[in-house]
């Protein structure tokens, strides 16, 4: 080709390229130049990472598509302008080739083609035709064409062409510089030829290929015999507790049903691969010929084990979770499943527990006289199964302390400063092992076992029991104390709120008996003031003195007993916020909001007036908002309290002296409790699932952690609830598979590491499990190597059902 013309011209002015093949060559040259792969390129990589990166270029030739790709380990360090470029590159290839023989042909180095692993290459070019190259003469033409392109560019990277059928791992490759040429050959046969079926045959083939004029050094051999131990039964790791037999067995163990299943119920091991390895021996030490062999795998210096797991390991925990997640798409009312629907309110609540053989006394009393005339709902779950479950969820209903909740229910929150977030830490929690956990896990297991009917029945009994407890003022056990905590899941908040109601109701009828036990008394409405008004001079509802503060009148200032703000769950707070937002943000809306918010202000003012007869607004402000109080003159209002039309003055104006105990309640426990119960009863299937899933996922994560999974948690924020659930379910699934795998590995390998030499005990264990003798090897591999005067020469053979022999032979091309 004319040296004066650059590639651009060659490509477009076809008159210089006379044959089709020259166009082919020109195209390859163009690509190689574009990738700067000429030896003249000054920058040379000297250090690599373990990550393969590649460049790809496609082109068509005579209707056949060719893909030329350049694969290299990512360079971590390049060096500029090495003078002895040829030698530098050659040594890198030769060293890599020699080192590669300490690994095995089927190892995977992460590159898309096996040649890098076979020959220890860090960089290579690969040309793949879209049709199989079978025809020998065509292969020759292509090989010589790429050879010309390679030489023209003075390419610095070995080049391979994929030949034969696509499924065959057959590649022809070469690399050359001014002095040497290395050929990388592949032979692939569907059957093992007789000559190559044993080591001595391979050695003579190797020697004949080298065709050395002088005597060679001793050939070094490494060998690997692979055995596939299909019968992995002796190592089966079984976690049982998932069978649904409990449905038919009397006196079953509640624990069986209430604990989440974990792991795989089928043997997750597909097979155990045993490699017997002879890392290095001299050709004469071991004899292996067509007539005699003293290769004995039991004597091999190294055994390694790799486990092959089944592709789709069915993990029980994830299955259970996935089943529940599917319910998120079901928008029917859960109670409709039982045909109860909204008519539930009419069904007289009488709980199963009231009929139980062992029951706390007040429950029994309550049951008397009611049980006879009530149309009782019969659910699909038999009483023999249902009762123990309910006693497990509500253990305080039974004298037996087996399932008692811990007295201190700690809610564990994600610590902002904790470095390692736990699995699923972004899912809202509830006290571990508390009622919400028990209920949720039981629900998931029942659903798994008996379908939606069972879930619905359990939910029905659950809400009935809550109703019963509200009516009889019995606290719900296993729920954290106090007001609804927005950091816990919604179901837990609802139960906290219900307990607040029950507690309030207990106090209402219990502790205040001294004055009046009539419920209506506390429900007094505003227009009843005639009877209830107290004389102005009799202070009521004092809590304590406020330091030595005095009223403007000089009398001591007392802090009144006040009503606590109504406890609310997060959905209620959202509703409140929504309502306020709906008003808009102009001045009038703002005023409206202030009015809406002044209920507790009014209550406090009334209590204050009751505790401090004759007090003025400035006295109240001194306690309530001290920075709006001025000490001048025994007490005066600050500027902003004097603004006309301000809600403080207005509210003060309408406030009457009423102690907190006699005020209209800010928190109406009856209404709130009924709302909670209605809320729970009237949920759709998907909404109930929403309530149950957080604890199921949390319990699942806790289970996985207990099974020894490290598990890392994503940082999840700004996504909706559904998506959060999905992310959590995925994380648990990954953790579960990992746990299955690592448990299997531990069972089989005990202290040894997968893929690393097995200890003596391990070898005995494996051999015993295999029945004392190994089956015929599934695959044999030999690597032969020798350094002659020119370079390392290498041949490797993998003999299984088919046969692959590869070789890298280097010859001198110096003209003598």
């Amino acid at each position, binding site marked *: 080709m004319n040296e004066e013309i650059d590639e651009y011209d060659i490509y477009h002015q076809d008159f210089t390229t006379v044959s089709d093949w020259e166009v082919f060559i020109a195209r390859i040259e163009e690509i190689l130049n574009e990738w700067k792969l000429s030896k003249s390129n000054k920058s040379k990589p000297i250090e690599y990472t373990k990550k393969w990166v590649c460049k790809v270029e496609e082109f068509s030739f005579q209707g056949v598509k060719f893909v030329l790709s350049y694969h290299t380990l990512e360079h971590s360090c390049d060096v500029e302008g090495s003078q002895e470029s040829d030698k530098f590159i050659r040594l890198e290839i030769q060293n890599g080739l020699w080192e590669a023989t300490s690994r095995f042909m089927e190892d995977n180095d992460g590159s898309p083609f096996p040649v890098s692993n076979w020959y220890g290459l860090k960089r290579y070019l690969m040309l793949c035709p879209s049709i199989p190259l079978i025809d020998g003469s065509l292969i020759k033409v292509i090989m010589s064409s790429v050879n010309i392109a390679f030489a023209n560019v003075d390419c610095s990277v070995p080049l391979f062409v994929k030949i034969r059928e696509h499924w065959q791992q057959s590649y022809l490759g070469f690399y050359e510089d001014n002095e040497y040429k290395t050929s990388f050959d592949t032979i692939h046969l569907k059957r093992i030829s007789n000559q190559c079926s044993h080591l001595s045959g391979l050695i003579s083939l190797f020697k004949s290929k080298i065709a050395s004029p002088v005597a060679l050094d001793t050939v070094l051999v490494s060998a690997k015999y692979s055995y596939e131990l299909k019968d992995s039964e002796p190592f089966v790791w079984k976690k049982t507790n998932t069978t649904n037999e409990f449905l038919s067995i009397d006196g079953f163990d509640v624990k069986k049903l209430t604990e989440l299943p974990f792991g795989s119920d089928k043997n997750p091991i597909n097979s155990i691969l045993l490699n017997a390895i002879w890392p290095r021996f001299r050709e004469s030490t071991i004899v292996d010929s067509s007539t005699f062999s003293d290769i004995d795998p039991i004597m091999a210096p190294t055994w390694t084990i790799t486990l092959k797991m089944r592709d789709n390991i069915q993990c029980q925990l994830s299955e259970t979770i996935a089943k529940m997640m599917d319910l998120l798409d079901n928008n029917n009312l859960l109670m409709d499943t039982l045909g109860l629907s909204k008519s539930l309110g009419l069904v007289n609540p009488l709980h199963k527990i009231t009929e139980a053989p062992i029951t706390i006394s007040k429950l029994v009393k309550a049951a008397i006289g009611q049980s006879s005339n009530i149309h009782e709902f019969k659910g699909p779950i038999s009483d023999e199964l249902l009762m123990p479950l309910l006693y497990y969820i509500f253990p305080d209903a039974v004298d037996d302390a087996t399932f008692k909740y811990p007295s201190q229910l700690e809610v564990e929150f994600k610590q*902002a400063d904790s470095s390692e977030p736990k699995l699923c830490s972004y899912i809202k929690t509830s006290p571990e092992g508390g009622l919400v956990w028990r209920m949720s896990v039981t629900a998931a297991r029942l659903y798994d076992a008996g379908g939606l009917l069972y879930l619905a029945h359990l939910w029905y009994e659950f809400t009935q029991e809550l109703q019963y407890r509200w009516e009889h003022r019995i606290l719900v056990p296993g729920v954290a104390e106090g007001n609804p905590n927005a950091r816990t899941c919604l179901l837990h908040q609802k139960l906290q709120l219900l307990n607040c109601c029950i507690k309030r109701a207990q106090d209402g009828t219990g502790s205040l008996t001294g004055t009046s036990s009539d419920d209506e008394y506390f429900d007094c409405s505003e227009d009843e003031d005639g009877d209830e008004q107290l004389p102005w001079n009799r202070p009521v509802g004092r809590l304590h003195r406020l330091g030595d503060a005095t009223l403007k009148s000089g009398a001591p200032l007392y802090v009144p007993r006040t009503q606590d703000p109504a406890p609310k769950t997060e959905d209620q707070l959202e509703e409140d916020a929504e309502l306020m937002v709906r008003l808009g943000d102009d001045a009038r809306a703002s005023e409206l909001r*202030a009015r809406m918010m002044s209920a507790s202000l009014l209550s406090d003012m009334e209590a204050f007036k009751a505790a401090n007869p004759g007090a003025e607004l400035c006295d109240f402000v001194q306690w309530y908002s001290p920075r709006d109080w001025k000490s001048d003159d025994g007490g005066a209002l600050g*500027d902003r309290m004097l603004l006309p039309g301000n809600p403080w003055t207005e509210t003060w104006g309408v406030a009457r002296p009423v102690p907190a105990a006699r005020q209209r309640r800010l928190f109406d426990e009856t209404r709130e409790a009924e709302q909670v119960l209605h809320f729970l009863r009237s949920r759709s299937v998907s909404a109930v699932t929403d309530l149950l899933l957080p604890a199921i996922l949390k319990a699942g994560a806790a289970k996985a952690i207990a099974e020894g999974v490290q598990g890392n948690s994503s940082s*999840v924020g700004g996504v909706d609830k559904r998506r959060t659930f999905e992310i959590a379910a995925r994380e648990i699934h990954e953790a579960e598979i990992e746990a299955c795998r690592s448990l299997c590995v531990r069972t089989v390998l005990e202290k040894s590491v997968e893929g690393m030499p097995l200890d003596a005990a391990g070898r005995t264990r494996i051999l015993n499990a295999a029945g004392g003798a190994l089956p015929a090897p599934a695959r044999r591999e030999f690597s032969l190597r020798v350094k002659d005067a020119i370079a390392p020469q290498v041949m490797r053979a993998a003999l299984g059902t088919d046969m692959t022999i590869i070789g890298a032979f280097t010859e001198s091309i110096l003209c003598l």
Partner: protein
Amino acid sequence: MNNNEDNINNGMEQTEKCVEMAGGGDPKWQKDAADQNFDYMFKLLIIGNSSVGKTSFLFRYADDSFTSAFVSTVGIDFKVKTVFRHDKRVKLQIWDTAGQERYRTITTAYYRGAMGFILMYDITNEESFNSVQDWVTQIKTYSWDNAQVILVGNKCDMEEERVVSAERGRQLADQLGVEFYETSAKENINVKAVFERLVDIICDKMSESLDSEPAMLAGGARGQRLTEQPQGNSNPNCNC
């Protein structure tokens, strides 16, 4: 009168959109494709002791007005302002809270959905500065974990009455690991800057959070990651 009703109606329309965004408990920043008025909505809260100037600060920002005496806020109130940030319309729903001790329970109930807090003290009032730590505890207890906080020392125009030096404010902010500004709602010093900075911090946090969970962006099948590409892996940062 007519005028007033119009206002309310407009208010209703506007707020419907807010509600969609505010629902669901945890903060959200999903883009609402149907909405033409904004791309994101951030809920912010202004907290701090009584009479440190929270309401004035908010009115200065939202209405660019100043009145020396606002009625002491009863409970909680809010204002809306839409700003542009990185070519995106960000609607700020800014909640103004009562600072009085008795209102703590009511106001902390609103912490949870908030993405940002402006924690304010009054540089002329030592007590309000001493309470900052308490407020931080409140935030830690009741807010979302990733909520962003800026510490603000207000009323910096009242230099003669200053009792908290800027240096002390800055030290406290460093100690708490939050940013710090001294502001004056009256003289309009740094008011806009505080809000803009807070929006920026939230935006940063938001992209960080999205980066850490690429599957979320794909929105597709469970566990789907950027699909493995056997060839053409030209992006060195891609860890597939």
